[in-house]
């Protein structure tokens, strides 16, 4: 098996790192790059920055934050929130991001997925999916940081997104996000069996052991961690060690 990636997720509002529950009730944690640098030094494999209000205000203000991070952080960075054109993507990539994550604008205009994939390569185009379980037992795609329903079925949508060139899926369970109750295993399993691109499971990691479940039972390729790290309930080094001793492949990392 390929190495599982341990990713720190930073949700941003204005200049601040924030954390909510079900993507709502946001609490200000502090300056994003202080957390980013801490996670880099703990051995995070990647960082994901999401501007949580960008769709609402029609802009993304992460460029400056990412540009500053690129000075002393040398791991891949994915940036999302409010990216609605090739120009927006170009701007964010020029400022040090390696991949862009797109949700709302892709739902409104799926052509954007192929445009980004063709211009920058599939590896650069992360389809961000906010999923919420319906009473029928399937999952519906939400946009605008979990605020708006789209009417789209998650499984159909990820298949379509991958056919258009999405190279990776950032799969956030709105139901589990911020609850510390573990990942939405049926959701991650359904998505990872529907498409062949890597899946980043996001939302619900309460204890390091949740990582083992989502990888072993639902075939996640990576996990995005926020609450568990921001509140110091664990750290990347300990999580890596637990993964390793439980037989999961993770990268060799020696703390400097």
């Amino acid at each position: 098996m390929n190495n599982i990636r341990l990713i720190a997720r930073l949700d941003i509002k204005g200049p601040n790192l924030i954390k909510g529950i079900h993507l709502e009730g946001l609490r200000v944690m502090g300056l994003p790059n202080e957390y980013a640098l801490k996670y880099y030094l703990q051995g995070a494999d990647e960082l994901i920055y999401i501007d949580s209000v960008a769709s609402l205000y029609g802009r993304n203000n992460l460029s400056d934050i990412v540009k500053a991070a690129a000075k002393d952080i040398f791991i891949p960075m994915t940036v999302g929130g409010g990216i609605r054109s090739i120009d927006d993507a170009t701007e964010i990539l020029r400022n040090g991001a390696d991949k862009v994550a797109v949700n709302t604008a892709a739902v409104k205009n799926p052509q954007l997925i192929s445009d980004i994939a063709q211009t920058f390569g599939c590896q650069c185009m992360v389809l961000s999916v906010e999923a919420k379980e319906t009473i029928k037992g399937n999952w519906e795609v939400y946009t605008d940081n979990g605020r708006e329903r789209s009417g789209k079925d998650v499984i159909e949508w990820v298949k379509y997104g991958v056919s258009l060139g999405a190279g990776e899926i950032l799969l956030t369970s709105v139901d589990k996000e911020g609850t510390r109750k573990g990942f939405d295993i049926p959701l991650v399993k359904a998505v990872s069996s529907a498409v062949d691109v890597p899946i980043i499971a996001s939302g619900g990691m309460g204890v390091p052991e949740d990582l083992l479940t989502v990888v072993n039972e639902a075939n996640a390729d990576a996990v995005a961690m926020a609450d568990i790290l921001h509140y110091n309930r664990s750290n990347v080094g300990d999580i890596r060690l637990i993964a390793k001793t439980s037989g999961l492949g993770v990268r060799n990392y020696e703390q400097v």
Partner: protein
Amino acid sequence: MSKSEVVVIDYGVGNLLSVQRGLEHCGVKVILTSDPEVILTANRVVLPGVGAFANAMDTLKNLGIVEVLTELSKLGTPLLGICLGMQLLLDESEEFGLSAGLGLIPGRVISIPNQTTSSKKQKIPHIGWNSLNSPHSKSWDNTLLKNNQSGDAAYFVHSFMAVPLDTNHNIAECLYGGHKIAAVIGHNQITGCQFHPEKSGEVGLKILRNFCAN
């Protein structure tokens, strides 16, 4: 041009800022340029790259950089190709039909197999951290990997892989789905990294530091 300057070829692809910041972290001044004359007189040159092989070659041709890179190899100027920039060093690539490369290191670029060696389906692109190992346990002493150890991990993101004709040009490889993939290749003063040293934490920074110091 001062010894402490590195030229990064800017031909409109990829995340150049991170390459620049990685090199600056190593204490050198970075000059981003597509000017053939500036590149020709450089002490050290980095060829970055993300995107498609044929497009990149066309752009380099149109900018008059292809001949310059051949000239640099004759001059013995240290050249570091990163990701697609590494693949361009070879003779040709099978990406979207056959396209000619720079021909500075003999060999070909082919697709990563979509099955593991145990015949399971495997994900393409290959995205993630993999350990570097020396083929035949050869020493890394005289290479850019000299301060790194076998097993150190670097960040890869690619769908194609380089296969040098002469296996002596393989400095490091990694395993993906059981397949050996060239991770670092080298010939005289030319080195190519399939992974991104500027995105591989301290392991990658060591490589950049060695490149800036040699």
